């Protein structure tokens, strides 16, 4: 049954045509009927608009371009011979003076140079500071065993254990 009372394609026949499974009879009707033909065209124009919009939307997605941009720039830099030459020149320019300086200090440092920072006055000052910190901490501190009320409720501990074992 491909036709309704109005002699146009039934909804099912129309859907079959849209799906691409239309019968030869339906296709013949479509070729001859301008009303059904315009319905098909209207449907396809709506779908085309949707497809164009979704394509433009997916192309304009900001995270896609953000992900693509660094990848391409890294690849470009990594493969360019000029960038390798530049990296090597930088390594030499920074590495050699640093290495020279370190070897100079290693060779020329004396015991007095190393002890200069650790004078007795400085050590005493640091010790005083640590002592005052210890005093400040211990004044407001409870004995650690009291924090858990272990001595006040010995039975609650024994009750709690079987439960924790169950888990």
């Amino acid at each position: 049954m491909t036709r309704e009372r109005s002699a146009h394609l039934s909804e099912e026949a129309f859907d079959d045509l849209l799906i691409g499974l239309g019968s030869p009879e339906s296709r013949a009707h479509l070729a001859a009927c301008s009303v059904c033909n315009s319905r098909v065209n209207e449907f396809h124009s709506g779908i085309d608009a949707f497809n164009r919009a979704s394509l433009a939307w997916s192309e304009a997605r900001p995270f896609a371009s953000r992900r693509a941009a660094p990848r391409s720039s890294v690849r470009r830099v990594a493969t360019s011979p000029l960038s390798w030459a530049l990296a090597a020149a930088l390594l030499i320019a920074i590495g050699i003076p640093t290495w020279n300086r370190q070897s100079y200090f290693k060779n020329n440092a004396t015991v007095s140079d190393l002890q200069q920072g650790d004078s007795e006055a400085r050590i005493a000052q640091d010790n005083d500071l640590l002592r005052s910190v210890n005093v400040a901490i211990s004044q407001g501190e409870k004995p650690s065993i009291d924090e858990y009320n272990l001595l006040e409720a010995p039975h609650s501990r024994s009750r709690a254990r079987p439960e924790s074992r169950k888990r």
Partner: protein
Amino acid sequence: MASFLPASGSNPEAQLEAKEKVKQLARVLETLSYNQRTVFLMKFTEEMEVAEISDAMGMQVNTVRTHLHRALTAVRGRLGRTI
């Protein structure tokens, strides 16, 4: 998503109508079931054949056809003559 519809040189009225169609279709697609929406998009956006959709989804051809029919009924029923 309708705002992403590229200007195709047509008049502003047609542009507005196309944007409205896109908006409505997107809304209807959201209401479809997963299978209905997937087969609809495979058919009309990816332009796959029913047999290809059947292979890709691991469904019988008749099942694909039923999903497409239901999706089309929903789309055409809710959008009426605008699509």
